[in-house]
Each structure stands twice: as C-alpha cells, then as structure tokens.
C-alpha cells in the first residue's frame, strides 16, 4: 500500500524523503495499528490516520491499493 507521513512525521520516511508517498508491503488483513507499529510510530506521535478521505480507527483493516495518510497532532486556522 501507499503511505504518506505528514508534517513532523516526515522524518520517519524510510528513504529520508519527508512527505513523499512511499510503498509498503503489509500482510493481508493488517490493521492501522500494525501499520503504525511497523513504522515505529506510537500513539502520541501518530495522532490520526486518514484512509479513503476519513480518519479511521486503530483497528481499521487496510486493503491493498489504499493510501494511508498519517498525521501528527496538528492545528492551524
């Protein structure tokens, strides 16, 4: 699947490319929780994960071909 790490999470990009999308192989039926675990992102760091234009829970089961957009705590106005 495709993963994007936004804002301060950019530093966890496996190739050091900030917020550029990258591909990650995950076992079929993996959850958001497992994805975050694989990236070494704990709950405090990764505040929200958006898939299919919605913020999803940690037990959301990811499907092949989806994009996961991962955000730290952010705000603005």
């Amino acid at each position: 699947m495709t993963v994007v790490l936004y804002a301060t999470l950019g530093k966890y990009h496996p190739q050091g490319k900030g917020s550029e999308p990258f591909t990650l192989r995950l076992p079929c039926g993996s959850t958001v929780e497992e994805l975050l675990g694989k990236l070494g992102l704990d709950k405090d760091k990764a505040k929200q994960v958006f898939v299919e234009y919605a913020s999803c829970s940690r037990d959301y089961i990811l499907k092949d071909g989806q994009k996961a957009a991962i955000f730290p705590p952010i705000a603005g106005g």
Partner: protein
Amino acid sequence: MGKLVRVNMSEKKVVVEPLPDQCEGKGGRWLTSLMVSEEVPAGCHPLGPNNKVVFAPGILTGTNAPNSGRISVGAKSPLTGGIKESNAGTPFPQKLARMGYTALVVEGIVDDDSRWLLKLGVDGGELVPADELKWKGTYEAARMLLDNYGEKTAFMLIGPAGEAKMAMAGIAFNDTEGRPSRYAGRGGLGAVLGSKGLKAIVLDDTGAPGVDPVDKDLFKEGQKKLVDAIQSHDVTKKGGALNSFGTAVLINILNEAGGLPTKNFRSGVFEGAQKISGEAIAEAAKQRGGAGTMGHSCHPGCIIRCSNVYAREDGSEHVSCIEYESSWSLGANCCIDNLDHVAELIRICNDLGVDTIEAGVTLGVAMEAGLAEFGDGPAAIKLLGEIGARTPLGHILGQGAQFTGEAYGVTRIPTVKHQGMPAYEPRAVKGIGVTYITSPMGADHTAGYTIAPEILAVGGKQEPLSTMDKVTLSRAFQETTAFIDSTGYCLFIAFPILDIPSGFEGVVQTVNGMLGTGYTGEDVGAIGKEILQAEKDFNTRAGITAAADRPPEFMRYEKLPPHNHVYDISDEELDKFWN
C-alpha cells in the same frame, strides 16, 4: 480609568475623552461590537458619514500575557451590510494599550479627495494632510512612514483598494519588522477608512504609562498556567506543527479529509495540495535559505510563532506570510499549485490592501465566469492588477465574490451574507458550515472553529460528515470565541485550552487579575452569548433576517466529491441556533 480617542474626519478634530462607564472592563470584540451597536445607526450607508470605525486592543493586550497582542476593528461592513469585527495580531495594539488607550473611534467623513494621517501620542493626537501617500501601495507607504517616524514606529495603513472604497479592502498593521502584513482583513473595513479619508495612523509611545493588572499575583498565576499549557500541547509547543510548518500545515489534512475547497468549491480534493502545503513552505525555506523563515511571530510575546517569511529562489524576501487561508484561497481554490505564484498573489493582495480570502474566492468566481483559466497563476496575477489599476473590471472584482458572480451571471458563488467562504468545505465538514451560516460576521471560520474536533481531533472528536448536534457545537464555539476575541489572545491558544483544563483556568485568571473581576468559566460563555446577541440585533436592525442564515443554494443540490454530500443541515435546524 481608560481613555477613548475620537477622531472626527469631518471636523479634522482629535479629542481624548475618559472611557464611558459601560465600556470599562471591556476590550477587543466586546468593545467594538458594543460601541458599533450603540453609536452606528444600523441602517446607515457603510461608506457614508454615519458609519464609525472602532479600534480596540484586547483586555490583556499590552501586558506580558502570552500571545495577547491582538486588536479588534469594528464597523458596519460594506461587504455584508451587517456588523463586522475583524482582528489582527500586531505590535500596534500593544503600544496603543500601553499608551493608555482602550479604544479609538474614527467618525465623520472628508468632503473632498484628500488623505489624512493620524499622529497619536500619549497626550493626544492630530490629523495631518497625507496626500503624498495617496494611492500608494502599502509597502511603499510603510517605508515612507518608517523613514519619517522611525523604524520602530507602529502603524496602521490602508492600501489603494481601501482608498477606492472596494468591499474586499482590509486594514494592515505592522509586524515585528515593520512590514504592512498583519491584516484585519475581512469585511471591507479598509473601504470604510477609505471613505473617511484616513490613510494611516502612526503611534508615538514616548512616555507611555504601561498596563498594570489590578491583581498582579492572580494575573501571574494565570499567565503561568497558560504558558505551560501552550508549551506542553503538541500543536503549539516549540517544534510542534504550527511552529514548524505554519498554519498551512492544514492543507494536507483537509485534502485527505476531502474538505479542501477546490476549483471554486467544485471538489474537496486538490491534486496539487502538497505543493502549496506548510511542508512545501518549510522545505522552500530550508532549500532557498536567505530571508526564508519559519517560526516567525506577528507580535512580541507570541510563544507559538506560526508565521513565516517566504523567499524567492535567490533567497530574497518575497512575502510574509503564507498562511493556510491564503495558500488555499489563491492556490487550491483557483487550482494554482505553484507556490511562487501563490506568494506573488499574496504580495499583491498585501500591497493593494485586500483580504486574501475574499480575493481568492473572487478569483475563483472570476475563473468560473471565464475571466481566466483555473490553474493559470499569471492570469490570476493579471486580474489582481486590474484592481490595482482601478479599471472598471478591477472595481467589480474589488467588490468581492458575490458582486463579481452577480456581474457575470455565475450561480456557484460560495458566500454567506455576501462574504466569501474560507478554506473548509461545509458539505464535507458540517459544523463549520453552521458557523459560516449563522455567524453575524458572514462566512467566517474563526467565528466558531469546529474544525478542531471535526478534523483535528482537538477538544474531542466529532464526525465531520455527520449533521448531529452541529448547531450546538457551533454555538458553543462561537460563544467562547467571542470572549477570546475580547481578551486580545490569539485564537490559537484555543487548541491547548480545549485539551488542558488548567490552560483555560489560566485565561480566566489573567482576565480577572487584569480587571479585578471574579469571572468564572461559565461567565465566558455568557459574555460570549451577550456579544453575539448584540451583533445579531444590529444585523436585524440593518435588515439582515433569518433568510440570510442560509448556505449558498448550489450547496443544497450539488454533491461535493469525494464524499458526494450536499449541505444537509436543514433551514429549521439552522434557525435553532438563535433559540
């Protein structure tokens, strides 16, 4: 006791009076909305002799409470026809408050085409002829003021758009380095000053007595709690998202939520979002070096520092600052994904003295009308040039999105009460739609920022597409906001205080320490309610009825991709806001 300055543009007189009793203990939006309600006939022409412009620093402005350097500006708006309060963070009100002034009222009108400058000192002020500033862009005018009055001078300015009485004209204040870049942008207040012939104000704070809290210990206790909350909350702490990426850090999250208005509100997703995001701005600052800066502050005492300076490829300064709203309005909303073009559009807006939100929404409507292609940055730059050249087309555009849309027969006009919608799609984020629709200000995101729980998961979490309880949610936000807008605090303190109870206590304690009052947490909502009601009553007297508390019709029948929702909070439900 506070002082009030009255500047009469008909008689060219400046009088300092004691603050009326009913104004004591008030500041910011509380004071501007109260004074406009009492002194401005609701039925008056916004550009006629009976309108007044009221400036008021917040209750805490001038103290060393963190992030407390905001000024509210109020009047009857030429854009909405209703009451307006627009605020900005700048050193200007910090000086004004320390000089002992609680409010400054500009009234009357010039009877010729002259321009005037108000010089205000601790003992009073005078109006001096300023025809040399006539039609000058704000950058050149600011330079002239700093050359004449000193590099540290705090100033207010209007640009040529204000002088031409265009309804998208805002009011510029100096930032910490003397740029005319901090705007009370919304609602056309620059045009009201233009009608009065007041081009600029400069402050000489020599001998300023300063601002002293009544109960210093309580003030300090509250101040510490608020500082701790700001410095410990993930979004506002040093190195946090706001500080590192600025407000445009929101571009990507709104895009991923399908709520970033794109192509004049035709879609909630913009393909080029990443290129105009806070991440891209920070990357440019790093790559280009030179003047590029993140973590810039709009006034001394800000400990969040969300502002930035954007540099050209050669490192020279292009503009300060690229905010989320501007990057969206002049970027995604017009399908422009070139950050240098966006920066140039912002620079032109600042120079002309226009609101970047209204300008971007107007350009989106103009593109809809076929005046330029979506995505064509240079064509957008040319259209803004029409405003600067004051051509007939420039005068149409300068009146804002509603007027432009009507002039060209456009039906997709994203406004409420004639004010352009900001950077959150109501069909994808239902609660912010309630704020746009019900706020006495017209479409204004800051009036009740339900985005915090709906998108950012700050202050709880709410499902953005759900219509459930969104009127109640927006009302709670609008009431609290009206209070915060009165304190002088930057609204971004709301993020930590929504999550950290002691931060909220700190806000109330600083106000009580300052004034010697005994307000409680509940009073915050009650005061906010009173302010909103006064604003609503003004609007009712001005002829703005419940029929204006509606979304633009196209949002009722046009489904917005990717969620394919219409705006589905009913009229009956919206009307409950004021129950």
